[in-house]
């Protein structure tokens, strides 16, 4: 026998193994080749009679025959067995509903707050907190609100007594933080605010704001622009653009308002942006030196920016919610969409 004859034998054995249609047929193939009286033991015995030059190759081919046929027989056996299990099993329905507790959902307002915290944490801002029931000093006076400013009216503000009110903005947290600490200050303060607005599609007497304040030796309007732009891209999408318009607020000077380009239509104009391509977001500015004086900071040695944004507004824009009342109606069919 020649080494090449062993190769031919292997080819034939593998064909037979692959063709075996039952466990018995498979066993017959095994016995024929690998059994005690099978063809492989014959070959092994015949090796010593071969030409010395041919022997190593023939030995290697014989081992390959044993190995490959063994693997093929095993694979074939597994295939035959699993086919027979499948044939004997009742039909299985893999489309039945799953059975594991589903995740719940965070309220869209909470999601926006959590996301804002994540974004500003990345810039080194920490989260600050203040009470809902505020003093007139923190909510108005210290923020340079004129004594007869209409926002102080009982028409606009919920007063509990002549000293205490429900905060109309999260800005009083700025004051509390600065009163308690020297610069640098780098905080955001999410929280509930209250105004005597009659509820409609865009107004709610309870709403949330996120206040931001950064005070250090040299903070600039450019820093404000850069940080707000970063926030916009993280919150709404990497291609969102921000534009700034001068505005007026008593607690900042210069003051700006800023708009985001519409993330829904990419600025082409759609329902969300009222076909303008831009969405008005909120106000910001450089902290008014008078506010610094009110908290005992020296405006000559520090500067800072502040912003306040409406959380509901951002949530409505981000998720395309048309009516603010949906956010407080707590219809599970609505809330589950935000899982």
């Amino acid at each position, binding site marked *: 026998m020649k080494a090449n004859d062993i190769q031919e034998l292997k080819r034939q054995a593998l064909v037979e193994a692959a063709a075996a249609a039952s466990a018995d047929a498979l066993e017959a193939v095994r016995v024929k080749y690998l059994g005690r009286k099978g063809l492989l033991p014959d070959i092994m015995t015949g090796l010593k009679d071969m030409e010395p030059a041919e022997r190593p190759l023939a030995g290697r081919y014989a081992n390959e025959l044993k190995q490959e046929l063994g693997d093929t027989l095993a694979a074939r056996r597994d295939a035959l067995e699993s086919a027979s299990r499948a044939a004997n099993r009742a039909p299985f329905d893999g489309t039945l509903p*799953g059975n594991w507790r589903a995740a719940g959902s965070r309220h869209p307002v909470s999601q926006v707050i959590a996301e804002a915290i994540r974004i500003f944490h990345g810039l080194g801002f920490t989260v600050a907190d203040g009470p809902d*029931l505020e003093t007139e000093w923190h909510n108005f006076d210290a923020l340079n609100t004129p004594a007869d400013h209409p926002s102080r009216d009982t028409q606009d503000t919920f007063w509990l007594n002549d000293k205490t009110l429900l905060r109309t903005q999260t800005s009083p947290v700025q004051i509390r933080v600065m009163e308690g600490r020297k610069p640098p200050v780098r905080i955001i303060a999410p929280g509930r605010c209250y105004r005597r607005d009659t509820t409609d599609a865009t107004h709610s007497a309870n709403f949330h704001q996120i206040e931001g304040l950064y005070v250090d030796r040299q903070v600039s309007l*450019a820093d404000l*622009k850069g940080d707000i732009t970063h926030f916009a891209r993280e919150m709404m999408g990497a291609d969102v653009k921000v*534009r700034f*318009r001068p505005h007026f607020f008593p607690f900042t*000077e210069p003051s*700006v308002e800023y708009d985001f380009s519409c993330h829904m239509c990419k600025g082409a104009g759609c329902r969300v942006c009222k076909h303008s391509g831009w969405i008005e977001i909120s106000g910001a500015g450089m902290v008014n030196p008078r506010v610094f004086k009110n908290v005992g900071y020296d405006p000559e040695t520090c500067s800072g920016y502040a912003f306040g944004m409406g959380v509901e507004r951002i949530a409505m824009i981000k998720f395309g919610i048309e009516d603010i009342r949906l956010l407080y109606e707590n*219809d599970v069919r609505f809330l589950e969409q935000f899982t």
Partner: protein
Amino acid sequence: MRIPLSWLNDYVSLEGVSPKELADRLTFSGLEVEGIETLGSDFKGFVVAGVTAVRPHPNADKLRLVTVERGAEGPLEVVCGAPNVEVGMKAALAVIGTVLPDGTVIKAAKIRGVPSSGMLCAEDELGLSDKHEGLMRLPASAVPGTPLSTLLGPPETVLVVEVTPNRPDCLSLLGIAREVGALLGRPVKRPSVELPEKGPAASARIGVEIRDPALCPRYIARLLTGVKVGESPAWMQKRLQLAGIRAISNVVDITNYVMLECGHPLHAFDLRRLRGERIIVRTAGEGEVMKTLDGVERKLTPRNLMICDAERPVALAGIMGGEESGIAADTADVLLESAYFKPECIRYTSKTLGLTSESTYRFERGADVLGADWAGRRAAALMAAHAGATVAAGAVDAFPRPPEKRQLTLRLDPARALLGVPIEAARVEAIFRSLELGIARSDAASVTVEVPAFRVDLTQEADLIEEVARIYGLDNIPAPAPSARLVPEVTDRTVRARLEVSRQLAALGLTEILNYTFTSDRLLKVFNLSPESQVRLPNPISADQVVLRPSLMPQLVETLGRNRSRQRAEAALFEAGRVFTRKADGSFEEHDRVCIGLMGAVGRSVMGRTGAPGADEAFAWLTGILEGLCRGLRVPARQKGGLRLPNPVLEPAELAWAEPGMGARVLLNGEVCGEAGILRQEMAREWRIGEPVGVAELDADKLAAHVFDVPASRPIPAYPSVDRDVALIVPEAVRHEDIVQAILKVAPNELRQVRLFDIYRGENVGGGRKSMAYALTYQSQEKTLTDEEANGYHNRIKAGIVSDLQAEIRA
């Protein structure tokens, strides 16, 4: 502020600048343009019609048959529903075939059976405004048959500008023109106020006395005689109308026109009605009464400023004229007031009396005390030109203490640092000059400007920096990539820990809700919540929102009910929020809480949700959520030896809101952290919920106290564990926690786990008793336990339970 562009173009050239471009420039310099309106049209098909006859409509009370003349074309009959139609008036007629601005085509039609050959139009139908208050009255001088376009055309563009409260100087055409000039680099032209003065000086006849110069620092009176009251010229009426002010008569229209032009409110008195022909400016006496133009008697205080004649009040300063002193059809001699009143005083009076007007709007924000004279001259010149007035020489100008000139300095380096741009001194100076801020001094380090009286907003250096920023353009300020800056030693863990509670509950499968802080008495009453410690709003918006919630639970249950009524049979909700209480000393407290509510078979597997859950089942879900929450929030486990037991412990308690026997205080390692239980059935039934509702309300800060604890790693036991079961027959009153405590008393360190795996009630256990089966796991840190050792521990525990709880061991 409405800015008709054709009018604005009188003061600053708008050539080559589209309305959109102009609007953008203004918006991005701080004057937000809220809208660009195009009013009017070429008025094709509209002609001036003169009403010659008005007769009733035979079939309709509110309609009239109107005959109109229209010059050479001959008369027409139209049906008209306007209440103000009258013989002699001139109105706009749309003939058959005319297309209205809204697209409607006027067709020959019968209206209630009578043919109408056209339509007489109101302002909205002409596209001039949204007013539909009867026919638009055209000037009496308009000639019937004239195309309306010669009277009202061409189409006009109006910018609607939102002027921030700090910029009263922009509440005028000239103020806006100044801004436009600065932005476009174009000059601003002011109209001439050369006066054709005649006759004796005004001061020879009229007099002014200011008794309270603090509230009225300046009062200028001019004298105009021989005035012929009539209509103002059509161009003026049209401009007023475009700006949103109704034309009344030439004298009144001119005061309004000048106010819109320069921002300074004026008032015209009929000199006949001014006793003594003099003006006295004084505050009202306490309780003094005056009747204003609108016929209302106003009771005043010394905080209200009045304009009086020699004997009595004739106007509320800066707010409204008196009933008798105004311009009448036969007024001949006019005293023209151009005064300056303190903003605070006008704001107070306007607010307390609820009277607002174009005049109060400007005075309360701050008029131009030095510009008052120009305004008076301008109005006098227009009255000479358009009301036949003879202008007396000079004016009576009571101005006791002219204000000192104000200067402000901008230091360049701090300004550059604050803006983040290296702006040059020359650019800063150019910006100031373009805004009419005269440069008093400048050097390499700073620029000092004279602040004009009309810029009431410029009071500190930061205000000048803002001027630079907005004219320089915020777009030209860079927006560098943010740089993270950490502030050491500042921790925000308490706030973030609280937020973690919500995250965990959502992860446990609950849906977060947000309710209002305000709630109603009715709702709190359902929950038997005591009114004594409630925080009530003195000025609520509605009766449903009168109390600051003392608990999150009532609204959460209400929310479950609302979802139930919307065919939502099951819900697992939570809210994290603040609650409020009033302490005995009247002070307020607020606390952060979290509330959980379960309705329906939420805890069951997906296909097992048919059939209402039992109360015990609902309670177990609640317990499971609380245990998962405690684990997620790293509340330390209760520990004894090697045994770790979950928190919380629910200690039975009778609660006002819980079903008797199904309420519990929630203990975290012995500390009370809230309440949990099954809601009283009668409360659930308020919302038609029949099945058990599981509710818990917890203190968020106590729950979250350990969020930032670092879990300490323990080695995985190296030796195998041994399980032993025990089934106990105990009286129904014995609770799981009692058994656990009995086990703990005698447990060796090797006890690793106690797991309840079955509860059985049945005849072979006996009435009033139950069988509870536990699997106990023993394991040593030091060696493999032998059967004998495990049995020894187990038997000691069994004996302990038997003696403690009168339990029987079930074979």
